[in-house]
């Protein structure tokens, strides 16, 4: 008997049954095909405007910084004015998905549109959604939004449309399940910059991932 059969048969024996009955199997398949909704916190069941405010407040609590701009055309200037506080522009890399999205050169930025390499100091990426409940960003992997951008550079800048802010994680999953491309390989839920409490139980930012996280919310 191989290990797979052995483990499965021990499980069945311990549960006091053999192979599951057709009815049991149907129950499990049904639960997987149509996930029942569990209770969710009431705190984020508010109007879309309030959700955007809650998102920003919760993000700030975990040491993210947040700005709001009126239109997508304002994003490059907002990114540029944030970056001058921290990084020299040469190390800037951006998700290929953002290449045609706005006029970066007009704001004096010349990002590489690629995955992040070890030398890159700052990355700009688009968010799929924001979750108001905890100020959490939902970032999906795809050929034009590689995962490495979210973890290698010191500075992580995320562009998020206000209309993509939802109340709960479950609402974000509903939107992901509805994607024509199916479930992405990687879904990163990001809540603040990297941190650790491993030395004397004291929180410090910038452990292995980004030292700082800046979120640009686009209202229009």
């Amino acid at each position, binding site marked *: 008997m191989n*290990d*797979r059969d*052995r*483990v*499965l048969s021990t*499980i*069945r024996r*311990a*549960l*006091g049954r053999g192979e*599951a009955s057709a009815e*049991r199997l149907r*129950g499990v*398949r049904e*639960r*997987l095909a149509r*996930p029942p909704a*569990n*209770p*969710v*916190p*009431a*705190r984020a069941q508010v109007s879309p405007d309030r959700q955007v405010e809650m998102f920003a407040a*919760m993000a700030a609590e975990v040491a993210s910084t947040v700005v709001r701009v009126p239109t997508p055309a304002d994003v490059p200037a907002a990114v540029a004015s944030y970056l001058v506080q921290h990084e020299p522009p040469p190390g800037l890399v951006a998700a290929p998905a953002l290449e045609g999205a706005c006029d970066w050169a007009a704001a004096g930025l010349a990002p590489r549109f*690629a*995955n992040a390499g*070890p030398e890159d100091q700052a990355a700009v990426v688009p968010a799929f959604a924001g979750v108001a409940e905890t100020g*959490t960003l939902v970032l999906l*992997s*795809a*050929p034009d939004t*590689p*995962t*490495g951008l*979210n*973890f*290698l550079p010191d500075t992580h800048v995320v562009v998020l449309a206000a209309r993509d802010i939802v109340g*709960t*994680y*479950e609402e974000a*999953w509903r939107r992901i*399940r509805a994607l024509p491309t199916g479930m992405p*390989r*990687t*879904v990163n839920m*990001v*809540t603040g910059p*990297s*941190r*650790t*409490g*491993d*030395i*004397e*139980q*004291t929180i410090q930012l910038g*452990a*292995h*991932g*980004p030292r700082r996280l800046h979120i640009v919310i686009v209202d229009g």
Partner: protein
Amino acid sequence: MLPTSHAFREGARRALDDAALQQALGMLKTGFRVKRGVAARRMPEFEQLRDVARDLKNHTLDNLDLYLEAFEAKVVEQGGKVHWCRDAASARQVILDICRAAGARTVTKSKSMVAEEIALNPFLERHAVEPIETDLGEYIIQLRDEPPSHIIAPAIHLNRRHVADAFMANHRDLPPERPLDEPRQLLDEARAVLRQRFLAADVGITGANLLIAETGSVALVTNEGNADLTMTLPRVHIVLTGIEKVVPTLDDAMTVLRLLARSATGQEFSSYTTFVAGPRRPGDLDGPEQFHVVLLDNGRSNMLGGEFQDMLRCIRCAACLNHCPVYGAAGGHAYGWVYSGPMGSVLTPALVGLEEAHHLPNASSLCGRCEAVCPMRIPLPKMLRHWREREFERHLPPLRARAALRLWAWLARRPALYRLFADAGMAGLAWLARRRGGRFAKLPLAGGWTRARDLPAPQGRTFLSQWAAGKRRP
């Protein structure tokens, strides 16, 4: 690691004399404990979510074979591979074979208690594969060649000077006169050293916080982001985890995750919660070429259907450790294996055997705080009692202790006689104590108590006789 749980008493005694450890454990009270309370109170649905999480996990365990098969099918569908391992030896071999096939020289690892359970690091080292821990706490204890002392804060027993010494001794190519007094300097040095290891690694090994049957995804939670670098950069990603980690759907996962960070560190949500499924896809610019999930049984399936099944709901949040007065005094190393605190005292005997670990279920005052905070509502004190019963049945306690217990049980089943003895005993003690200021500094048969503190003498009459007399208020 080889268990040394039989030496719990000696380990605990050493721990009490270790000033640095005692200082670190003292911080639990103002740190994790307070923060958990604040986070739980801030979410009015917290208690309700605990019920939902318990029930959904019970349902999963009752159908564990089906959910594991569903999970496997989804992983395979996305180009990944699932390896079933009945014990530690088989899991170690599977992992080594994957590493060898990939020609791996170095392996980055993100914190995995299951990897500690199967003693993966020494095995890989013996076979010329170098494992590098990347969670900061795990990295520090790897340099010091120590086991973790806490399931989510493995280096909690150390202070900054221990860390500085470990870095000085191991980071030999850095200038010896560099300043390493501040936690910031220590963290920056670890970040720089480990960044190179991340980039060079051939294989990345992570644990899993949850497996999701609906999608074949593995959910991983960290604050540092080390799990993400571990799984994204190398050519091969191996997930090593226990069979009990599966949940049905993404919705179920979110219910459990809402409890996890709040119970563990008091955070609303950890910095990074990642759901990953399968290897790199066509057109992807990063991600591993191979995606393996190693599902470890190692005694877990035997816990199903019996008095210890509830333990399989555990999500390794460490709330029970953080709130345990015994863990808070003895620390994690005294428990002698990977898992410590109340959850360790229940799990260790099940996984390594009661002969080795029979002291652990006794290392508890059964105060019940662990069950009160456990997000998965695991009845830890009840299970500790089950182990004590089994210990008694197997004649593991010393003869004198068993005889005393048997005598007490005999008396306790005869209420009239019991009361007679209790009344007489109390009166005797009270009489004796009158000449000693109401306290005993020493008392025959109570040396374990009086070694560290006085025994206050009984005052007045027994509770039962007061009750019988209708005196229900002091």
